[in-house]
C-alpha cells in the first residue's frame, strides 16, 4: 500500500457549483460522494482513486466555486485545496449547456499554471437541448485536452480517464492569441484537434 501511494498522481476536480463534479467523481472512482440536483451540495472535499494505463490516481472532489477568490466557506475550502496542491493536475469540469459560465474559473486555473484537463460534462443534456459544443475547437483554443463526458450516461468517462495523463500547462497569452484568430500551434503536448483517443 505504501509503495502504491508513492506512485499515485493527484487530480483535483474543480468547477462551478452544480456542474456534476461529484457525479463524475463517483463514475471515475466508484465513490459515494453525495450527489443532488441543486448547487452547493459538496461543502467539503472527498477523496477517491482510480487506475488508468497502469497509473494510480488519487482524485479529490473539490467543492464548487465560481472563482479563485473565495466568497464563502465552501469556496475557501476549494481555494485552499488548490493552493496546498500547487502543481498537481486539475480536472476542470464544465457544464456543456453553460460553457461560458465555467470558462472564467477555467482560465483562472490555467493562468495559475496548473496542468489542466477539461471535462465537458452534461454533454447528454446539451444534446437534448440541441446545444452543440465542439470539444475539439475548445481544445484547440485552450491548448489543454477537452473531453466530452456525461456522468449520467457514462459517455466519455473512459476517454477522460485515458486523457488524464495528457493534462498540460498552457500559457494564457497563447490562448489569447488563439482567440484573436492566429493560427497558433495546438496543445504544446503535441495533442490537438482530436479528442478522446487517449493514445496519441
Amino acid at each position, binding site marked *: 500500500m505504501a509503495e502504491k501511494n508513492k506512485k499515485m498522481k493527484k487530480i483535483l476536480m474543480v468547477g462551478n457549483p452544480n456542474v456534476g463534479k461529484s457525479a463524475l467523481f463517483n463514475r471515475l472512482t466508484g465513490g459515494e460522494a453525495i450527489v443532488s440536483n441543486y448547487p452547493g451540495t459538496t461543502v467539503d472535499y472527498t477523496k477517491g482513486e482510480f487506475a488508468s494505463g497502469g497509473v494510480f490516481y488519487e482524485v479529490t472532489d473539490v467543492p464548487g466555486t*465560481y472563482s479563485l477568490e473565495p466568497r464563502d466557506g465552501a469556496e475557501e475550502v476549494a481555494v485552499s485545496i488548490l493552493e496546498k496542491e500547487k502543481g498537481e493536475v486539475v480536472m476542470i469540469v464544465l457544464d456543456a449547456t*453553460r460553457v*461560458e*459560465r465555467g470558462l472564467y*474559473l477555467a482560465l483562472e486555473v490555467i493562468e495559475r499554471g496548473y496542468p489542466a484537463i477539461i471535462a465537458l460534462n452534461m454533454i447528454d443534456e446539451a444534446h437534448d437541448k440541441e446545444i452543440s459544443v465542439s470539444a475539439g475547437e475548445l481544445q484547440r483554443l485552450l491548448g489543454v485536452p477537452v473531453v466530452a463526458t456525461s456522468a449520467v450516461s457514462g459517455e466519455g468517462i473512459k476517454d477522460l480517464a485515458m486523457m488524464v495523463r495528457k493534462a498540460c500547462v498552457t500559457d494564457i497569452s497563447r490562448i489569447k492569441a488563439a482567440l484573436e484568430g492566429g493560427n497558433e500551434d495546438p496543445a504544446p503536448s503535441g495533442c490537438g484537434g482530436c479528442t478522446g483517443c487517449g493514445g496519441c
Partner: protein
Amino acid sequence: MKKKLSEMDYGDFGTVCEISSNKSALRSLGVREGKTLTMVTKQPIKGPVVVMLGEVEVAIGLETADFVFVECA
C-alpha cells in the same frame, strides 16, 4: 438610458456598461461589461434580483445590484 440594475423593472433588458464595485465577484458570475442581461425576477422586501445572462440565471443581492449600471434599450 443608463439605469442601476437595482432600479430595473421586470422584463427590462440592456447591456452592462459599468460595474463600480465588487467587480471580481460579479465577473466570476458572468456579469461583465458588454454583456446583455434581462431582468427576470425582483423579490420583494429588498430581496435579490434575478437576471438572465444568456442561458444562465444569476441572482444578485440588491446592494450588489446597486453597483451595476445597465444601458437599457
